């Protein structure tokens, strides 16, 4: 479970460049993740590795290819000080958990890490770091392997015009 450390404002063009957007298979996308900006990632990333980043991770395009490429590379968790909005939703929708951790600056590239998301902590090099609690409905989507599993259970959407909350 190694840490892949990134800085601030990691955009979706860096995660998966535009020329690979005709691909929809997550394993195939993973072969091009961070191509040109961090080439060792696609070669060396292993199942269960964790991305740790600064502010505004996933800014830019709405391409869902970005969280898919990371999922295909074996990533299950992304820790960042903050996330861009569309990426945040897309990650949850494909079954990848974005976790907000204010102290990611202290976590080093390449170190080993354990994520205890239910307990609200991560442990890196023997030190504990707090992560913000994840709303329960986010787990229900991630655990249904994304929004698709959730949507399958619905006959119709509970639109707020039909039944008042």
């Amino acid at each position: 479970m190694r840490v892949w450390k990134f800085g601030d404002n990691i955009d979706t063009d860096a995660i998966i460049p535009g020329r690979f957007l005709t691909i929809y298979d997550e394993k195939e996308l993973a072969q091009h993740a961070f191509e040109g900006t961090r080439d060792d990632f696609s070669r060396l990333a292993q199942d269960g590795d964790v991305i740790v980043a600064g502010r505004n991770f996933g800014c830019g395009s709405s391409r869902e290819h970005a969280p898919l490429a990371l999922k295909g590379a074996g990533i299950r968790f992304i820790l960042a000080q903050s996330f861009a909005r569309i990426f945040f939703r897309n990650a949850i929708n494909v079954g990848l958990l974005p976790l907000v951790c204010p102290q990611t600056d202290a976590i080093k590239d390449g170190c080993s890490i354990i994520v205890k998301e239910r307990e609200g902590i991560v442990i890196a090099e023997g030190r504990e770091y707090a992560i913000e609690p994840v709303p329960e409905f986010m787990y229900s989507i991630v655990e249904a392997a994304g929004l698709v599993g959730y949507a399958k259970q619905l006959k119709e959407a509970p639109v707020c015009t039909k039944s008042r909350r």
Partner: protein
Amino acid sequence: MGATIIEKIFSGRCRQDIRAGAVVMAPVDGAMIHDITGPLAIRKFYEMGGERVFDPRRIIMLFDHQIPADSIEAAKNHVYMRKFAAEQDIHNYDICEGVCHQVVMEKGHAAPGEIIVGADSHTCMYGAAGAFATGIGSTDMGFVLKFGALYFRVPESIRAEVNGRFGYRVGAKDLILSIAADIGADGATYKAIEFCGQTIGDLDMPGRMTCCNMAIEMGAKTGIVAPDQMTWDYVAQHREGIRPFALASDPDASYAGRRSYDISRLEPQVATPHNVDQGVPVGTVAGTHIDQVFIGSCTNGRFEDFFEAAEVLGIRKFSEKVRVIIIPASRDEYLKILRAGLIERFVAAGALVGAPSCGPCMGGAFGLLAPGEVSLSTSNRNFRGRQGSTEAEVYLCSAATAAASAVTGEITDPREV
């Protein structure tokens, strides 16, 4: 406590009083899919058990990123989407109309008070029509195609009040680049930016579109301008049966932040590599070598942009050291510049004029940059690798600055040519 325009849109569509922070399953009035994110959205629709879309009349399909098909894979995606459109009775504009956001505006698919989603981050542009419009991913879009609704967290708003008159050859793009530099790439994350003030009131629809288009570059969920007479006139020109109604934030609405800008002394702005919020006055980077100039995109690919570029160009030719690529944002805009004689002038001056599409902005189709090359572009993003090699650089600017620089062969203040 009064409500913001965003809160009013959600309250109106959900028929209950809704405030920022609420998470609601809101009905969607319009949904747009294109050739990049559309195929995956369609797959998700089927995976969710979808058989018929919620309402084919509310769905817009078109291809703009990889057109005409630039690879066999892209062609296959187009075929897949065409088949879906035929099966579901969805109107497909196909490859002929132009860049999705411009087409949505022109064809009357966004109007004040509506909730519109698009599987593209610059969907926030339709805030210029007084709609709440936001970009979503493909899975969310699959859900929308099936159910005609989506979960939203109703955003808080940042009020950006702009006053003053633009100086010579300074305009909306310079304004929004300077606002992005002020607010920062994540300064408006999950919020709406409400543009207001005398300058915004005076700004034409293309200028308002440029501003709302780039709200996402500050992390915003949307940008919006409260509809005024200009908005209603524009929308009525593009959709039948539009009746104006009052829609604006209350004076005592609660905002997450307030910014005010006096633009009387604003200089032409250039966003430097590799972030949109790294805008500087053009003088700071004047003289920078450029290899390619791109005038186009959903941000600045309208008649007014090309008219301004042509005015700067005058009777000169573009520098032979620079590749100048000009791409109108839509067929309508193309026809306007064609009839105005601008295409002839651009081509005679040495530019390559392309058919309406996203062009080099998408970074995957054509007009790509080699390592070490520098592009000056009127589009919206200058991320590393956005227009080709990750070792290339992209600067962003207005059409006036792009044209001036294309004449001299280096980044140039448009007021000095």
